[in-house]
């Protein structure tokens, strides 16, 4: 057996378990869902009947799908923007030398470690119209005459879930940005200062370009996760009021477990999958991650 063949067998043997595992837990369910999207399948019957493009025709006819796509985009862009801004500000602060730095840094990571159910319940309590802490404070200081229905208001519900997700996952951005900040060569700042740059100019001309790769990476990762986000929204608003927070995952869930139409729900999931794939393709085309990493070094 040639050395090359042996090497091939070795590679195949060592990667096979991971590939098999990936196929079982990731690709097989995707294939099953795509297959189901071409079938008529209700929840209470084991029978599955091929129905061609019927499910896709039905969901594309409905304004519900396009409305859900739009809300997903609003939620994703909003939540990612809050996370990036929070993460950047927090990372810049935590990058300064001060007493108790380690302790404060660990406090900042805490929201990311909390289970979503805990975060959702805490924010439900904070934002509650009748007995919420936020309304109570705003009324006590005289900023409000009547409490605001944060989670039940048509205009406020989406912002409430965006703020909650922004708070919870902002610390993920903080971690990555802080790590990158600490890796920036101090000589770059020295050179900028010698050239007469003030703190703002240093931030604009040194820090931000150095953070570009990290910010893009965080935006991509968080964007994908937020686009698929189900738990926070479901726990806080159930997609309401009047579908004001019904994003694509909530829409798919409703089709599956309120309409009990698994075929249509699978069609929505397939559309979601394609949208994310399209997003990833655009990302790889526009940003070329390998080049970004080179630049970042």
């Amino acid at each position: 057996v040639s050395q090359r063949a042996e090497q091939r067998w070795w590679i195949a043997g060592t990667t096979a378990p991971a590939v098999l595992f990936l196929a079982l837990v990731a690709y097989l369910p995707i294939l099953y869902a795509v297959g189901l999207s071409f079938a008529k399948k209700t929840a209470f019957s084991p029978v599955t009947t091929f129905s061609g493009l019927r499910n896709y025709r039905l969901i594309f006819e409905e304004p519900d799908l396009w409305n859900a796509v739009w809300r997903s985009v609003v939620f994703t862009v909003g939540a990612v923007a809050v996370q990036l801004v929070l993460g950047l500000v927090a990372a810049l602060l935590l990058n300064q030398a001060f007493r108790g730095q380690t302790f404060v840094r660990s406090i900042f990571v805490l929201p990311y470690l909390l289970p979503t159910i805990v975060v959702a319940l805490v924010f439900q309590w904070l934002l509650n119209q009748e007995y919420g802490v936020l309304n109570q404070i705003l009324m006590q200081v005289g900023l409000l005459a009547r409490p605001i229905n944060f989670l039940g208001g048509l205009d406020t519900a989406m912002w409430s879930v965006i703020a909650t997700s922004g708070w919870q996952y902002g610390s993920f951005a903080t971690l990555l940005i802080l790590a990158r900040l600490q890796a920036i060569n101090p000589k770059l700042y020295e050179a900028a200062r010698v050239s007469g740059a003030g703190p703002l100019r240093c931030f604009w001309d040194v820090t931000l370009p150095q953070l570009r790769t990290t910010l893009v990476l965080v935006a991509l990762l968080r964007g994908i996760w937020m686009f698929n986000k189900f738990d926070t929204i479901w726990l806080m608003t159930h997609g309401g009021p009047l579908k004001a927070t019904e994003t694509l995952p909530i829409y798919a869930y409703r089709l599956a477990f309120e309409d009990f139409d698994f075929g249509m729900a699978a069609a929505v999931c397939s559309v979601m999958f394609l949208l994310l794939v399209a997003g990833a393709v655009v990302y790889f085309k526009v940003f070329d991650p390998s080049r970004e990493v080179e630049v970042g070094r």
Partner: protein
Amino acid sequence: MTQRRGITRRSFVTAAAGAALAPQILVRGAYGQDKNRVVFVSEESNPKAIAVYEKINADFEKDTGIKVTMEYPGFANIAKRVATLIAAGTPPEIVWYGAGQAMNLALENQLTDVGDLVKALKVPDNQRMIFKGADRSIPTSQQFVYGWARGDLLKEKKLDAPKGWDDYLKVAKALTDAPKMYGCIVPSAETGASTLLLETMFMKNNVHWFDWNAGKKEYEVSLDKGDNRKRAIETLDYLNELHKFSPEASNYNWGELMSTYVAEKAATSWYVGARLLEQVNANNARIADATVPFELPRKLTDHYYLSIQGFHILEKSNVEGAKKYVRYFMEHPSLIGWYHAVPLHIIPASRDMLRSSKYQDNPVIQKRMDVLKFIDSVWGKGVPLYYWDGKELNPYIGLYHNENLAGWMLAARNIKGMKSDAVVTEAAEQVRKKMRRAG
């Protein structure tokens, strides 16, 4: 000379697929064929009810050799759990939950004929669920939709519990001191609570979603037609007026109906059964004695939404074992403990049982005999949704009920401010569209 057979790619894939599928097939085969096993999925997961199940199941296994495996997915998840088990080809033997939910199974021919048990257990006619000429449900208990009010506050304002729509509005207005106290709760969200309120108030005003077409022998949407339309609009406008004395409630569901009342933020509320009273007893005993039941006010009828729960036995399961178990359960001396798990909330299917000293021999019931008398006084006026529009079982109720369309109607009227006329038109169209989609 023997020739060694190499493993080809095809034989490898075939063997692997076979190995993967074999346990699945064996497991599927084992279900339903195992005469000594019954899988029972129950919605009721109260610890006291679970203790009764455990006692009865142990006795059943001792007497018959059949082991009962329990699952308690809870109210919110039971439909999903049952769907998963059916989709996996491993249907449970018994599901205990609302007959309205079980209707979804009947429509897919998943429920077996239980006429023999219905006859043997002397189930009252108005609680039967008949599909394709056969009984599909064995009722154990029921829950009525009715109101709860702070008797002390009514007395303070020299008011009686409301009887008609105008009374209710007057009471709600008099008891409101927003935002500290609201006179009523009109949940206006796409939730079960909002849905049941509108469905009950529709019944009170004789509004029907469907009419039976005797010629075609099928139900047709009639919500937006003739008098129905007028009455539906009137009901929505009335609830919009009432909503002015309610919290905005745009995200209210069952929990909020109870917590807002228990926290003394609402002077009246309503619920399906007496669980609200249980919560008051547990969390705010100060107002427990002052909490009194009242019938949600009538306009044209005294009917209300009736929820019937019972056993449902699935086809392609161990039907014989399941039937044996249900009969054993219903005749077991511990059954009374099951009814007492949430006293006055789980109402027996039989009025004789309700009036029996055995049922009334419970400290909570003894203390609140007024509630029992109230339940007795409204007995028989409730109608399950699937028989509201006619004598034939209406197979289409899931199209609006499962999706909380009535909740959407209340939210569209009270939160979005849509005109009732437009809300009724859109709701009827949505149901028609779903009927077309369902084929």
